[in-house]
Structures are given as structure tokens and as C-alpha cells.
């Protein structure tokens, strides 16, 4: 199975989403420090290549089950910066209308299963979405994300096993960012590669450089093609590093600074930019145009969010049940 290489337009699109993700998250940090954010802030800084690379390998009709580090994938599936900002400000215009917070949002009509807190809970759900595709003979795929820590949970196991036995079209994608909150990988599992967990299920497992957006894209595209052809699920592990605290309240002092330095040098966006420049697909002018566009979108988003109404308490009881 060959994978189509991205066109220049697609490459620039990937670049745009990488930068938009980083930019939005940077802006959220500022808002957080200004005390404008409600609740915690969970960022994918340094891990954008996994979210964006994976999402860029999907078809529009495919579905994602993101984690809290996958803003990039959400954006590519159509979540707007405005919705995202309004969500972080707990406004009525946020994706959960103030009922849930931060990265806990989704929209199944746009192909996004809304993320919830309990780690790995979305993986069986993703399997069920894929099961539906299989039953309906739709050639659609689910990309289901999870962290290294989440891979210790029973639901990870049950989901991957179920998907493998039923040959469901899922690509399970791991952000192996070396930590689960303060817990390093070595306290999470006694193996080196999360991809090796695939062996327990009889599905392919592949480890890629998670800071290389095209490597991620390629691996996910291959796995998705396989899934689409009815050959079942795969596990793709992107090796990366959580570059900030678990959430913004956490200074991550438990992470050796040298480790962060090492990974900072491998920043996925810098690397991809350099690669685009090498291929002369990006120059200062284009880069600036993209940056300007993003800056504008972000400021519009903040403005939108800040000027949006709060939820109305008269709706307090609404929507618990579907009618």
C-alpha cells in the first residue's frame, strides 16, 4: 500500500495548522496568566506534529477521538479558534456551552468524539464508531489518540483487543510524551515502545518520530489505508516530549531540564519549517502571511470569546436528556 505524498498546498496547510495550534495555545497561556481562563489549561506544545500529522492523513469523512493534547487535530476537523477560545472562557458560545471545560469538547457531526477526562475511555468508543463503519460498509476510519499513561488502563486493552478481534478500521495513535503527569515512562511500563503493546493484539505496531509531522502522517496514512481495506486496526506510536507541565499549574520541576533542552532542539514546527524552506515551499513572505493570518484569527477568537455571553442559569436543568 503506497501513501500519497502531500502536495505543496497540503504541506502548507499542515504548516498552517501546526502554527495555528501553537499560536492558539500560546495565547491561552497568556489568558491563563491574566486569570481569564476558567479551570485548567492542557496543552499539546511540542506534540503538534502528532495531532496535525495524523489528522492530515485522514479523509474528511473519517472520525477522530482526540486526547487533551490534540488541538491540532480538532482544528483540522473543523473546530474554529472562536469556539475553542469561548470554550476556554466557559462561555455560552463554547462547544459545550459552559457545561464542560477546556479540551473537553467535540462534535460528532464534524467527526470528533468529545474528549472526556478518564484516560482511555474514548478508545472503546472509537472502536464502536469503527464497528458502525464496518456494519454499514462505509470506508471510513477512526483515528483514536491516547497517551503513554492511558495505555496502562484497562479500557486501552479492551478497546484494542476488541478492535483487533472484530477487525475494525481504527488507527490507535499514541502520544508517547515520556510522562503521565509526573510519572515517567519507566514507572508506567516495563517496555520501551508503546508500539510493542500491539503484539498483544495481533495488530501492527509502529514507532515513529513524533516530532516529524510527515513521518507521523505517513505512518497514520498507511495504517488508515490498511484499516480502510478491511484489514483491521494498527497502533502508531509517536515519540515526543511533553514540553510544558501536565497542565499550566504544574511547573514540571520533576522533568530533568536537559531532557527538555534536548527535545526543544527537535521542535516539530521549527523542523517542519526548515524542511519547507529547504524545499523552497516556504519563504519569509509566505511565512509572514501565514503568521499574520493566524494572529488575526487568534485575536478575533479572543475577542469573540471575551464578548460572548456567559451561560444563562435559566438553562441549568436543560439538556441532561435527549428528547
Amino acid at each position, binding site marked *: 500500500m503506497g501513501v500519497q505524498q502531500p502536495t505543496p498546498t497540503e504541506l502548507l496547510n499542515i504548516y498552517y495548522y501546526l502554527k495555528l495550534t501553537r499560536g492558539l495555545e500560546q495565547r491561552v497561556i497568556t489568558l491563563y496568566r491574566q486569570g481569564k481562563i476558567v479551570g485548567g489549561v492542557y496543552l499539546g506544545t511540542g506534540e503538534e506534529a502528532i495531532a496535525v500529522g495524523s489528522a492530515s492523513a485522514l479523509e474528511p469523512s473519517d472520525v477522530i477521538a482526540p486526547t487533551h493534547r490534540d488541538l491540532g487535530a480538532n482544528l483540522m476537523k473543523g473546530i474554529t479558534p472562536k469556539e475553542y477560545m469561548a470554550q476556554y472562557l466557559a462561555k455560552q458560545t463554547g462547544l459545550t456551552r459552559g457545561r464542560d471545560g477546556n479540551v473537553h469538547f467535540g462534535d460528532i457531526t464534524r467527526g470528533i468524539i468529545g474528549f472526556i477526562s478518564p484516560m482511555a*475511555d474514548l478508545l*472503546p468508543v472509537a472502536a*464502536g464508531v469503527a464497528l458502525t463503519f464496518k456494519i454499514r460498509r462505509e470506508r471510513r476510519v477512526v483515528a483514536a489518540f491516547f497517551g503513554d499513561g492511558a495505555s496502562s488502563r484497562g479500557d486501552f486493552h*479492551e478497546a484494542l483487543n476488541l478492535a483487533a478481534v472484530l477487525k475494525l478500521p481504527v488507527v490507535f495513535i499514541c502520544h508517547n510524551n515520556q510522562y503521565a503527569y509526573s510519572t515517567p515512562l519507566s514507572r508506567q511500563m516495563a517496555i520501551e515502545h508503546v508500539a510493542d503493546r500491539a503484539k498483544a493484539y495481533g495488530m501492527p505496531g509502529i514507532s515513529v518520530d513524533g516530532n516529524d509531522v510527515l513521518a507521523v502522517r505517513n505512518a497514520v496514512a498507511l495504517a488508515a489505508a490498511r484499516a480502510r481495506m478491511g484489514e483491521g486496526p494498527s497502533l502508531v506510536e509517536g515519540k515526543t516530549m511533553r514540553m510544558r507541565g501536565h497542565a499550566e499549574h504544574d511547573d514540571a520541576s520533576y522533568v530533568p531540564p536537559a531532557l527538555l533542552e534536548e527535545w526543544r532542539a527537535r521542535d516539530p514546527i521549527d523542523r517542519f519549517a526548515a524542511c519547507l524552506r529547504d524545499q523552497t515551499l516556504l519563504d519569509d513572505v509566505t511565512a509572514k502571511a501565514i503568521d499574520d493570518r493566524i494572529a488575526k484569527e487568534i485575536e478575533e477568537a479572543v475577542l469573540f470569546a471575551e464578548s460572548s455571553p456567559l451561560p444563562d442559569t435559566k438553562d441549568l436543568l436543560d439538556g441532561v436528556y435527549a428528547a
Partner: protein
Amino acid sequence: MEITYLEAIRQALWEEMDRDERVFMLGEDIGVYGGAFKVTKGFLDKFGPERVMDTPLSESGFVGAAIGGALMGMRPVVEMQFSDFIACAFDQIVNMAAKHHYRTGEPVPMVIRAPYGGGIHAGPFHSQCPEAWFFHVAGLKLVAPSTPADAKGLLKAAIRDPNPVIYFEHKYLYRHIKGEVPAEDTIVPIGQAEVKRPGSTISVITYGAMLQHSLAAAERLLTEGIDLEVVDLRTLQPLDMATIASSVKKTGRVMVVHEAPKTGGIGGEIAARIAEELFQYLDAPIVRVAPPHTPVPFSPVLEEAYLPNSDTIAGKARALAGF
């Protein structure tokens, strides 16, 4: 023609599967074997392996998968082999399924069939009545039919409902009771209790296997001039307070009878609501008849002492009538 409670469930499943191709079933041993209680016998042959799906032994996994199916517009019906094992899927039910619509506005139309209850000498792990765990969780609907007609009509309603519904089917009733079932495609609406026996002395509010015992107690007490009104809740969530209230207003005396342990059981909520909303109509203390705060004992002699029956119900009713 009279059919068993089990046959009524079977018919409802069959007719709904036939009527709506979005309905499909997931669970352990429901295919070739036809389910531990043979409820789904013959379904595999008729509907094929993609709509009658044997899963690996993983309750959390297949409940999660059902949620995924529901999000994609399917109507999954999950069979727990015994409701006791619903504990293994607890997180998916209370955190994922129950809260999804509230957070996102997206419906989660699915049914979990939970064969529950004791009286079959099956001990602490195959006899539990777990409905109270879920009663406290906003976003779930709970039904617990007591007759073949209700079993059929409520299962149809549950399958057509846009919310996650836990359908408590009582194992003891499966083959122990028979009754007429309307020939046509009859729905018993979720949320409506039914007065199964009108009376004037005491309102007995009950559900599940305790309905039969309550009716038997009523027969016995008739000669003593005690005329029980037996209200069958049928739906536990949402509670039909209107039917309860009109009965209480009529009798002024209330007994709540259930098979789940008394402490923390649904009877507490019912009694509390009556004590708050209907205080002025009460002529006597609100009595609850339910098992003690212990696991369900295995030995028949202990189990018999543990479970309420028409004797204990009649005894308590006598005392209450004389208050």
C-alpha cells in the same frame, strides 16, 4: 396467548431488530449460544453476525463500543451476562454515556440489558440488584418491568429512546411468570408507573420481582379487610411521581418494597420525596420493605430469609394498617 417474561423480551428484541436495521446487539455468548439465559436464541441465524455480535470478555470495552455506535446513529443493545458485571463497565456508563448529551447535545441512543436479581440461589455475584448505583446518575434512564407485557413494551420504548437506558430484566421472572402481551407493536412509555391493583388501605410502591410478592400479599390481606393498592413503578428513572402521589393521596399510608438492599436503595428516594411533597397526606410512617445491608447470600435458607416475600410484606402491611 400467554407468554413468559423471557419470551416477551425476546419478541421485543426480534421485532425491533426486524423493524429498524440500526438496532444491533453486542455481548458475551449472545450469538451461537443465544445468551446465558437464551434470550437471543435464533437471532444469529436470522440477523447475521454483524447484528448479533459475540464480543471478547470485556464489559467496559463493549459498552464503550455501544456508545460509539450510538453516537453514529445506530441503536446498540448490549447484553450483560449478569447485571453484576455491569460494575466492570461502570465508568463508561456513568462518565461517558450518561454525561455525553449534557455536554455536547448529541444523543446516545443505546440500551444495556441487565439480567438482575436473586431468588435463583446464585449468590453474591449473580444475584445483585444494582439499579440504585445508576439512579443517582443524571443522563441515564432506568426501567425494570415486572410483567411480560411491560417487559415487551418497555424494551421497545428503551430501544427507541434517544438516551442510554438500562433495562433491568429480572432473572427470576424469566420463566416464572407468564402473561398476555398485546399483539400489535405496543410501546409502554418510559416514565409511567401503573397501578397493578387498586386498593384503599395502603399504597405499596414496588417494581421487579417484588410486584408478584406484593400482589400475593394483597390477596392474602383482603380477607382481613386490608386493601392494598399496588403501584408498579416500571420505570425507575425518571420516577413517575404523579402516579405515586395520586395513590398516596388516596390511601395516606405508604409501603415501598424492593429487592435491592434497603440502605441506599431507590426506596429511600421515594420515601423522601413523599415525606417532602406529600407530608400532609400521610397518616402513618412510610415503611420500606427491603433486604438488609449484606451481600446476597448463596445458601437457599439464607437467601430466603434475606429476600422480602409475601409473608414479610403482609406482616409489615398489617402493622402499618393498624398504625
